[in-house]
Structures are given as C-alpha cells and as structure tokens.
C-alpha cells in the first residue's frame, strides 16, 4: 500500500518512454484539466492532478488486477464507477474523485474489509477507515470473517490469512509478474477463496523457492518475515527506531540493490527498492534471506 504521490515518478516515466511518440491524452479530474502520456492510467492522471487516490491491490511493479476496487472514481457517462488503476486515460474523460458515489463505495469497501479481515497491521488502511467514516461494527456480531490460523511452516516467513484481503499481489509476484514459480494461486470461490498451494500442502512441499517476493508486496502483513513476526510477538517490533541502509547484494554479479532494515543493530528484514532497474523490488532467496553471516550466524 503506497500513497500515489510516491509512486508516480516511475509509472509515468515508464509510460512516457513506451509511448513518447504518441499524442498525449487530455482529460479533466475534478474539473481540472490534465495532460498525461498516451497509455497512462486514470490513476496516473489523478496523481498528475495532485489527487491522492487510495489503492490496495495496485503496485507499480505488478500488473493491475483491479480486485479491491478502493480506487474507484466516477466517470461521466459510465453507468458504474471505474477502477482508476486499470482504466486507461482517454481523451475527453471527465472524472470525479471525491463525489458522494465515490466516497460511498470506498466507505463500504473499507467496512466490508474491516468487518471480515484483521487490518491491525495494515496501517494506511486503518487510517482510511476513519477518513471515509467507515463503521464496520454496524454489521453486528454474527459476521463471517477470514477465520484462519497463523501458519508457521519454515524459518523464513509466516502466513497469517486472517489478515488477507485477497488482493492477488502475492499470486502475481509468485507468477508471471516476477518470479514465474507459480507456487500459490487463488483457490476456492467467493468468500471461501484463499491463497493456497495445490491441496494446501505446506510451503516446503510446494514449488515455493523462498524468494520472499510475495512477502514484499503484501499490503496487510498477512505475509511477514519470521524476524518481524517474532519481534512483534515479543512486543519488540519498533519500526520508528529502525534505520534503512542501501547496499548491493554480495552474492552474485547481477547487482541487486538491497535495503537493510535494522533495529538494535540487527537486520530485521531486507527489501529492494521498487524503482531499482535491476530488481523492480524483487529479490531471490539469497538477497532476501541470506544475511545471517552479517551477524556471524
């Protein structure tokens, strides 16, 4: 979950390179005229107009799946709202991003999520809940929830599907958007849909190669590194005190940039910057998990 102002640079740059010969697209966002490169999304246009659009299933390094619908905006002439992340900006579009309809749908989506999923570690979502006046309690006590136990199947990361919003990001990162391992997919249907391996076999028995790219893209901490999970369980997870140091992975010659997240002079997790030309935020098991030697382990 990134706020859109942080992300724009990369996504419009990329679009600009791809379509630099095409005529730019002009449209209006909340009555303000904006111009974006051909091929840009409505979300890009919103950002260009200075509008911060909430997103959940969108990530700049993944193909939009438009499943969460939190980014919906009103498009004059469309019967329904449209997802900003996956709709291309078109000439002459008139978009409203803060109409009553938009606010209502976003509020309901937040209520639906908050009433069924544990959002306690999905920080930006939690603040949206109050921003949009969502009241998950009004659905009463007898509501279906994800109701899943934490799965600890190895030493590297845990899966807590109580926190899963089914945004598909992990599936995409495991599949043809990054890793091409295809260890997980969505199984089941409707509210029973879950991220799963085949026959729900444990991760070590699946195709998983422990690149951790699924963990890196998870917006709600349903997937988290064991280091973080253990510290949280012990009440010792203090993100405010953490520092981030950029370095280059020492294992091979590819040159992946690593961000070492350090707390109490100990590495607690490793990520890679999304805008890094080599990784687009994705790593392999060595860069992601193979840092124990730094601490002599």
């Amino acid at each position: 979950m990134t706020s859109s102002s942080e992300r724009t640079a990369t996504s419009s740059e990329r679009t600009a390179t791809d379509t630099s010969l095409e005529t730019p697209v002009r449209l209006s966002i909340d009555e303000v005229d904006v111009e974006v490169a051909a091929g840009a999304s409505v979300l890009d246009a919103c950002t260009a107009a200075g509008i911060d659009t909430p997103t959940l299933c969108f990530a700049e390094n993944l193909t939009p799946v438009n499943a969460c619908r939190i980014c919906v905006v009103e498009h004059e002439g469309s019967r329904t709202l449209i997802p900003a992340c996956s709709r291309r900006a078109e000439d002459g579009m008139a978009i409203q991003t803060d109409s009553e309809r938009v606010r209502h749908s976003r509020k309901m989506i937040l209520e639906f999520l908050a009433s069924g999923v544990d959002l306690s570690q999905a920080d930006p979502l939690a603040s949206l809940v109050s921003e949009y006046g969502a009241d998950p309690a009004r659905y009463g006590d007898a509501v279906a929830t994800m109701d899943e136990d934490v799965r600890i199947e190895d030493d590297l990361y845990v899966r807590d599907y109580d926190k899963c919003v089914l945004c598909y990001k992990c599936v995409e990162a495991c599949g043809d958007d990054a890793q091409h391992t295809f260890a997980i997919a969505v199984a089941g249907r409707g509210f029973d849909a879950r991220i799963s391996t085949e026959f729900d076999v444990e991760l070590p028995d699946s195709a998983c190669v422990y690149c951790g790219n699924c963990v890196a893209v998870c917006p709600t901490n349903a997937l988290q590194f064991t280091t973080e999970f253990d510290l949280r369980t012990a009440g010792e997870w203090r993100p405010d005190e953490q520092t981030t140091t950029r370095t280059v992975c020492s294992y091979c010659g590819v040159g992946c940039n690593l961000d070492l997240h350090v707390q109490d002079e100990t590495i607690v997790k490793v990520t890679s910057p999304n805008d890094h030309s080599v990784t687009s935020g994705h790593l392999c098991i060595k860069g992601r998990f193979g840092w124990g030697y730094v601490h002599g382990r």
Partner: protein
Amino acid sequence: MADLHIGPDVATELERCAVDDVISDVGAAVVHHGDRMVRGGTARRNERRHLLLPALHALQHHAGWISPGGLNYLCDQLQIPPAEAYGVATFYELFRVDDPGHTDDVVHVCIDAACQIAGSAETVAELRSAGRRIHESPCLGQCERPTAQFVQGRGRPDRVEADEEPFELPQAGTDGLRLLRRISAGVDPMSLESYVAAGGYAALAKAFVRGAENVVEEVVASGLMGRGGAAFPTGIKWRAVAGETGQKHVVVNADESEPGTFKDRTLMEHDPFAIVEAATIAGFATGATKGWIYIRGEYPLATKRIQNAIDQARGAGFLGQGIARSTIDFDLEVRRGAGAYICGEETALFNSIEGFRGEPRQKPPFPTTNGLFDRPTAINNPETLVNVLDIVTDGGAAFASIGTKGSSGSKLFCLSGRVGTPGLYEADFGVTLGEVLDLAGGVSGTGELQAILLGGAAGSFVGPDSLRMPLTFEAARAAGVSLGSGVIMVFDSSVDQLPILTRLAEFFRNESCGQCVPCRIGTVRQHEVMVRLASGPSTDNRWELDLQLLEEMDTAMKDASICGLGHTAATAIRSAFDLGLVEKPGVTQ
C-alpha cells in the same frame, strides 16, 4: 516454465487413462524422443491450456474427485502449475478435491425459488432417507418441472431423470410461433435430415448469396437485441468483430444459469441444428473460423444433442473446411461448464474455456476486440442466434416489423412457480405480462397473485399492478426493471417471501467468484442481514438498521463491482422490500 514442481502423489491407471483420452488428439505438452531430446516450449504449452477444464471433468467423472495424483499427472501432461490447476478445480461446483469415500452417483437437487416453493426441502429429505447421495444445488434450469434434479454419474453418464419423460411444448400446434416452430412441428432433434426437410440450412445458403457484409447489415437493420439478459444490439457486435483482422472466434454462451431460466436448454435439446446453423452464419458474417459452444455442466441432454448436431453437420459438410461447398472454413467445439453461475458472464466464460478460473475481466477492452484467447470474439446467446436464421432468410426489415420499434422480434418466456402450466412460451415483444401469464393458465395455488420475479435472480419483483406492462426492453427500462433472460416466476398470495429472499441472498453469496471486494464480502453481508431479518422479531431498531444496510450495500455493489453479478446481487431483494412483500414482524415483549 520447464521446471514445474510436481508433488510425489502418483495417478492411478484409471486417472491416467482419463487424462490421456482428453489430450490424445494433440499429445502432451512435452514429448520425449529418447533420452536426450524433448519437444516442448511455451507455445506448445499455451496451446493446450484450454484442455484443463475437459481433463478435470474426466478425472471427476472417472475417479469421483480430483485427487493429488490425478492432478499431478494432468499438470505434468499439460505443463500447468499444480497450484493454478488446483485453483481452477476448486472454483467449480461439479468438482471436488477431497476423497468422497464412496463410488455412488450424486443427486443434485435444486433449492432455488421455483423448486423451493414446490418443496425441494422435502425432496432432499426423502432422497436422503432413501440413501441417495445428495448435493443441494443452485437452479438447475428445469424450473418448469420442480423439484429439479441432476444426477452426476460416477463412471456412468450424467443424466436428468426427467429427460426420460416425453417432452411437451405448452404451445405445440399454435400458430405464429417463430423460434419454437420447429419444436412445435416435431422436427427430430437428432436428425439433420429432418432439420433440412423442415427448411434447415436454407438460411446458410441465403447467407452465402447475401455475402458476409450484407448479413451483418441485415442483422443491424433487424434491431435484434441479445437475449441473454444484457440486450446489446447483436448487429453492432458483429459489425465490430467483422471489422477486426486475424484469428476471430464465435462463442455461443449456453451456460444458462440464471435462476428461473430454461429457454436455451429447451432450444438445445429440441432444436440443436438451428443453433449450429446460426453459429455458422455468425462465423461467416464476422469472419471467424473457430466457434465454441459453452454448455452448462448440468445439461447432459442438451450437450449430447448439440454434439450430435455438430457431428452430423460436420459429416454432411456443413462444418469444417469449405463448409457447404464454399471456400469458408468454420468449425464448432463443445465445452462443458462445471457448475458456476458466474461463467455465464462473457469474460468469465472466456477465462473458463482458456483453462483459468472463471473470474470476469475488466471491460473495456470488450470481447469484440479482446475476447477468447485475447482475440476478437462474437459471443451470443443461443436464443439470440436462432433469431438470426429468420433475419437472414426474410431480411432485417421484415424482422424489425415484428414486435415493437425498440424491441423487434419475439421472445421466449420461462414461466415457473405458481402458474397453471409452467413451461416455455413464445410471444412477440409488446405482449403484456398479464397476457403471458394467461397463456400459461394464470396464477395457480390460491389463484391470487402476490408478485412475479421478472428477469431471474438478477431481475426484480413486480406486483399485480405490473400485469398491464408491455414486455419490451423499453417498457421494462421505463419501469426500472429488466426482462433479463425472460424469467417470469410467479408467486401466489400464500408464499412467505422471507425464505425466498434469504435463499436468493445465499445464491449470490455462493456464486460470487470472490475476485472483487464489493461482491465477495457484500454478498456475504447481505445474506447475513437476510438471515437476521428472517430469524424473527427483534426488540431494538435492528430491522431499520438492516434495511438501511441493504440499501447501502446495493448501491456499493452496483457502483463498484467488476461485473453484472455484483451489480445485480441486491436488485431483487431490494425490489421485494420496495414492493412491501415483507413486513416488519411484530415486536415481542
């Protein structure tokens, strides 16, 4: 994807044979030539992915479930990641991924509205006590003969016992039938000869004389609107596909699953050659050489008869290369659905055929440019297609003169529930709701009309004051309702609507694909509210709060869901409250 991870479970001989049989024509994705050479690769794998659904059907049919060993073998043969194939298998109602522990056939019993008021709960209890394996099913598309049942065979063919009874068309012998005239005349649905003797394949010959462009323009001129529920102009769709280049597809959307609808089943079972001929004309007109007919999995007789029609047509040169001695190529392939209402949504249907989960795609882009296999696709409902035969024969203007200005032609209506003679009826557009009800013998039961569910579960309830409403797209739109797929489900004054509405909510909860948040969770919350409302009086203001929730959820699902399922998941329920079909129960002290 050369190094798929396949688990240790091994398929049985039965499972291997089942999969091999499905892929025998094209072979496995990777072929070993001796120890040191293989043929394979991405293109070869992608070309075979669409065999996943038929192969899953084969495993389920022969083994009674999709076992880890069976799935592994299938995934190895088609080079599909097991997690993805498992995700597909678990999407469908007709597949199970746990060992059933028995080798019996399973009886699917419909529990949706028309069967619900006919006593499906009792049928389920009786069959259970008789020792049958029961699966409570959403609408089985046999609403004219409740309680509907479908037997899923284990190693034996799937069957519908009611299909063994003689078929009677309520309007048989009546004048003025257009779509149903061959059925009325008793044309043998298993015989091409009989179909041709009744004028069959004259339309294809006429289409060749007219030329592809002219056929498209006549369909545009006819004003024919799609009969699957969305009422999109067929000619406009065809014109768009005809304007595209490269490989194009025609898809017949015969995944009829809208509760209350059984028209396409009746057409496929009793006039299958008409659908095959019309699909061929669609292929000729749009320049598509490949056709697919996706039939819902619970329609074994329709599947058999359509397959027979295709085989006979191919044998006689009406399908294949150089159809009917022309230079045009067109062939049709049957695909069976596996129990998923959502696969009637056109883009979900594409994903289903392609071997992915039946999740709808965001539109735009539309199927006319990015349809099946991402190619331009004309996807039409069977009833829509059958209309094309007369349009080609008589011209678009003649067709446009039938019905009303905004709704040309005739329409099939599926009468069910508390009505004199339930069944399929045809009438020209413009006929009133009351007149159609009279055609079917009026209200049965108490004889007093409470409400009609118009358009199916995705439609709305209308009251007795709507009987004078003309059944046209424009009149329905003006009244804020929809003709949908032609469902007219009748409820007499004795029916308690709360259980009906609660089941409707449960239907959408079960059938939501789960992709988008508004529908995945909204349909669940809606069902929970209905369960609470149906559970009896409460002493606080919960009732008012819940009605407020229903309204707000409806708005959000309509506005923010990806597809029509979410858009309409609350429509019928809200219309029932608006009509006052449900009253607030008395407050208990």
